[in-house]
């Protein structure tokens, strides 16, 4: 099982195909042959074949009290979907609420509280809603609840974290008791995906006090103390059949990684998250616990602001991109739980990733050429980094070392994580950011690379890119759309002042008795939607 971590498994798509083969009666050997034929090593294929067989063979068990430890705890934890901001919030959200749609392992929207949807022009959308669904307090779910849950994000008083995505919603009305019509100010074919994101979960119309956590979800909240813990019990009136295997879910945050692992090894929790790649060896040695790795599109980028006289030149950016020793970063920081990136934000595991785009390689000679042209040799270039922001400080030190060998002096300035996002990130010209996986290419590009994007950290302006982004958003033809996204990836890689060395995987750990986890790249622990999917195997 050594390779279980080494390879962040297959893309969800491939895994699904594997499982399909298994259900058609393919044996473990068939699967092995299929995988090795596609160029995979025997060891890796063996592990995957085992996993696929096991996942298919195991039948869900009902019952048991599930205990899960998240990786952070704060008194600011909330049950208001609009304010969800951390994994603890998302995980609780999926226990008690549903979205109109949900995102599957390929990040495609699937029916949830909406059964179907359609739009002729990408501007006016009609969602048919599920009938016979009730909230935990017995109220029936209607289109009014959907309207209210969607529109509240546009009220500044709500202080919604989804404001950036929902700004284009001009109107939402109940066009029938179970029909929602949404009108956008500009066409967007990703609306059903947006409706599947964490912040857009559905609450009863008129809710202002969210402390009771009334939703339509699989579990009913019985106890919640922000920063301490929550307890939820099975909702016996849930509209889905055959899910919700465990009886109760206790969820709490444990910010210290070694306490999480110790609690897991001592059998006091069944599932935990935020595992440092460095701990993978320890977990692989322990027979009672297993790793659960999800390929994701989360990355830490090194940004160089175009507005800065020193680091803003095209040559500087090209030099740094060629200088980054990506394979060292992948192997020494992430222990190979990462994929090499090529300075654009669409990960290989995502839809619209352009595999025709040549990877950005480590090329010291090219780096020296560009850095000399940029006229920075002999200067000390300040780079801010914080030990509390992912592994960016380690990255900074690796870059510093590579730069020194090339003759460039980088002065790594360490800053505390406290206040980092408000005072350092995007305020200093040369530093690091971290962008978690977003479900669509459009969201990432709009946030991080559009000229007026709120996270446009390198302050990059390219009218051609902005045009392509709008064109892709309102393009119904998949081939044309994919081409637009491929062009954008090339533009960002070569033009923007961001270096993206690797995309790193989400790593969770769970007891061997916990079954049913499937990778969903929007986050750890099945995109935080483990609640209604996992079960405890008594054996």
């Amino acid at each position: 099982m050594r390779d279980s971590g080494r390879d962040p498994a297959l893309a969800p798509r491939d895994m699904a195909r594997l499982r399909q083969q298994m259900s058609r009666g393919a044996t473990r050997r068939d699967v092995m042959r299929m995988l090795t034929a596609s160029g995979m090593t025997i060891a890796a294929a063996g592990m995957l074949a085992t996993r696929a067989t096991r996942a298919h063979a195991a039948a869900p068990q009902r019952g048991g009290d599930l205990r899960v430890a998240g990786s952070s705890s704060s008194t600011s934890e909330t049950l208001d979907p609009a304010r969800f901001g951390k994994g603890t919030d998302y995980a609780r959200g999926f226990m008690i609420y549903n979205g109109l749609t949900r995102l599957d392992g390929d990040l495609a929207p699937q029916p949830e509280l909406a059964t179907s949807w359609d739009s002729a022009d990408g501007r006016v959308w009609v969602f048919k809603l599920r009938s016979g669904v009730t909230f935990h307090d017995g109220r029936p779910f209607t289109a009014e609840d959907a309207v209210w849950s969607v529109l509240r994000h546009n009220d500044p008083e709500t202080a919604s974290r989804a404001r950036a995505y929902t700004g284009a919603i001009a109107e939402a009305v109940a066009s029938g008791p179970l029909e929602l019509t949404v009108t956008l100010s500009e066409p967007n074919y990703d609306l059903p995906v947006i409706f599947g994101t964490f912040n857009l979960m559905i609450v009863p119309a008129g809710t202002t006090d969210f402390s009771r956590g009334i939703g339509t979800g699989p579990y009913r909240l019985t106890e919640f103390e922000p920063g301490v813990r929550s307890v939820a019990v099975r909702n016996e009136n849930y509209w889905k059949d055959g899910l919700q295997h465990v009886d109760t879910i206790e969820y709490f945050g444990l910010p210290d990684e070694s306490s999480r692992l110790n609690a897991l090894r001592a059998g006091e929790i069944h599932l935990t998250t935020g595992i440092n790649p460095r701990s993978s060896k320890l977990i692989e040695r322990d027979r009672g616990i297993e790793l659960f790795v999800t390929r994701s599109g989360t990355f830490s980028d090194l940004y160089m602001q175009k507005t800065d006289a020193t680091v803003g030149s095209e040559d500087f950016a090209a030099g740094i991109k060629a200088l980054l020793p990506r394979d060292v970063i992948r192997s020494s920081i992430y222990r190979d739980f990462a994929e090499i990136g090529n300075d654009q934000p669409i990960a290989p595991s995502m839809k619209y990733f352009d595999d025709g785009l040549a990877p950005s390689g480590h090329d010291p000679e090219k780096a020296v050429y560009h850095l000399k042209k940029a006229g920075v040799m002999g200067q000390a270039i300040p780079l801010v980094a914080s030990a509390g922001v992912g592994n960016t400080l380690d990255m900074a030190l690796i870059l510093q070392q590579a730069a020194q060998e090339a003759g460039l002096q980088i002065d790594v300035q360490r800053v505390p994580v406290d206040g980092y996002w408000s005072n350092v990130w995007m305020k200093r010209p040369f530093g690091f950011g971290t962008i978690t996986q977003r479900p669509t290419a459009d969201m990432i590009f709009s946030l991080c690379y559009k000229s007026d994007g709120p996270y446009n950290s390198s302050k990059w302006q390219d009218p051609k890119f902005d045009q392509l982004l709008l064109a892709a958003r309102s393009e119904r033809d998949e081939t044309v759309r994919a081409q637009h996204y491929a062009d954008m990836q090339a533009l960002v890689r070569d033009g923007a002042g961001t270096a993206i060395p690797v995309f790193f995987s989400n790593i969770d750990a769970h007891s061997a008795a916990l079954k049913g986890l499937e990778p969903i790249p929007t986050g750890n622990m099945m995109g935080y939607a483990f609640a209604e999917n996992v079960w405890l195997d008594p054996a």
Partner: protein
Amino acid sequence: MTRLIAKRLLLGLLTLWLVATLVFAVSGALPGDAAASILGQDATAETLAALRAQMGLDDPLALRYAHWLGGILQGDFGLSLANGRPVAEVIGTRLPNSLLLAGLSTLVAIPVSLALGIASAMRPDSVFDRLTTFLSVLALSTPSFLIATLTVLVFSVWSGLLPALSNIDRAEGFGGTLRVMALPVLALSLSVIGQMARMTRAILIGALSEPYVETAILKGTSPLRAAILHALPNMAGPIVNASALSLNALISGVVFVEVIFAYPGLTKLMVDSVATRDLPVMQACALIFCAGFLILVLVADIVAILANPRLRSAG
């Protein structure tokens, strides 16, 4: 003595006010505010402004300070900015946990460290004394989080004797409470026992070489009796004062225990409140820690006075 206590209480109130004012002033210098912390990376100018207005963060610091002080004088600690709940309620769920942890640790730490200290002082440089010294220095110089993690490894991961997490809300009955408290109390006591035993030993050895103790021993008193009945009362003042300083760490210095054992106490709450810039909660925690310290020092002084006949009768 009543006058002394009254004077101390008055000075204590003054200190509390100064601390609160200082915390208020310093918090203004922290980067970011509660609204920015709640919205994080997703903040937009519009939502930030709306949230700030809801929280009353637009008012000048002096005005907010006046509001807060006015509230406190009427017993109203305000609302938590992080989750909108009354601060008194938030504190109310955490304070008993902190007191329980500190109380149990004190019950373990004081007798053990006094016994170790006295026994070592009786036979300086004996094998027992050297062993105690070695272990005390080891416990003192090992970082507390390491002690806590090691106790978890030994007592729960490897042996499965005790729970690794201190889930006080799920503990059933008195026995259950003792079980979940065992490891945090052990980790916490270990870190103060070393210090208190060392101090007791040092203070007592000095006293044992005084002429009055020698006289007592020459008159036939057993060394143990001489140490406990003659030397110890004279040294009670310094020992109790030094112990008060150590015990204070059991209330305000236990954040590592609360984090490692997921124990919902006050220090974790305070750290959280600083991270979320939740000023009302931060203030309330600071006041409680400060008050706890003042009370311990006051109790130490009273004990010292009671143990000293000259001071006892003085007023």
